[in-house]
């Protein structure tokens, strides 16, 4: 599963993305975030307040309870500030 980070989520984690293989019980974006938080301080910082974390699955916006599966491109990022 390809995971991408943007904005201060990327800054805090320290990498723009990574190829990961979460355990089988990671079924949603929220599950994935909980699992990622266990990987280190940067992750825990990035995902401390989930009210300001947004997600996309395969380049479409998704709610945190949306299902994910192997092969998906999952992106995690702050609220967007375009324009």
């Amino acid at each position, binding site marked *: 599963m390809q995971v*991408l980070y*943007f*904005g*201060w989520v*990327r*800054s805090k984690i320290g990498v723009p993305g990574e190829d990961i293989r979460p355990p089988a019980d990671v079924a949603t974006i929220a599950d994935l975030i909980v699992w990622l938080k266990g990987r280190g301080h940067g992750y825990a910082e990035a995902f401390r307040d989930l009210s*300001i974390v947004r997600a*996309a699955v395969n*380049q*479409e*916006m998704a709610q945190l309870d949306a299902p994910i599966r192997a092969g998906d491109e999952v*992106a995690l*990022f*702050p*609220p*967007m*500030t*375009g*324009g």
Partner: protein
Amino acid sequence: MIKVQAEDFDIGAALATLTAGKTHVGALASFVGLVRDIAGEHRIASMTLEHYPGMTERALAGIEAEARARWPLDDVLIVHRYGRLEPGDRIVLVATTSAHRDAAMNACHFLIDWLKTKAPFWKLEDGSGGAAWVAARDSDDDAAERWQTSPTAQKSPTST
């Protein structure tokens, strides 16, 4: 048409392509966003726009489609830059053409409002306050929300 690019754009040339040879177009509305030299109390030396390649183009195309579904538009142009910019630099151009001015103006306003909160860009400002990511603003959410009320064939949110 959607363009996501690092390079600057020429406003006059971009707008000219929207109306060239089209005698049924009566209205051309446009908006250009520029980098300001002040953010709150801090002077800004640069702004770096990060984006999500691939998704950015899809999101902008979706916003364009939404505008075309709501108003009778002849054409839509969105040019959005990414990368390092300095105060005074152009960030984004939104332009719409229509037979009628209200459709062009409202669609242009809608597009820039939606871009602010629905296009995957993030801004890193650097200046007298150090480097800081620009936080999303509630007022931008409110601006995007005000277009939600009437999903189709909306003439104008200003008329009741």
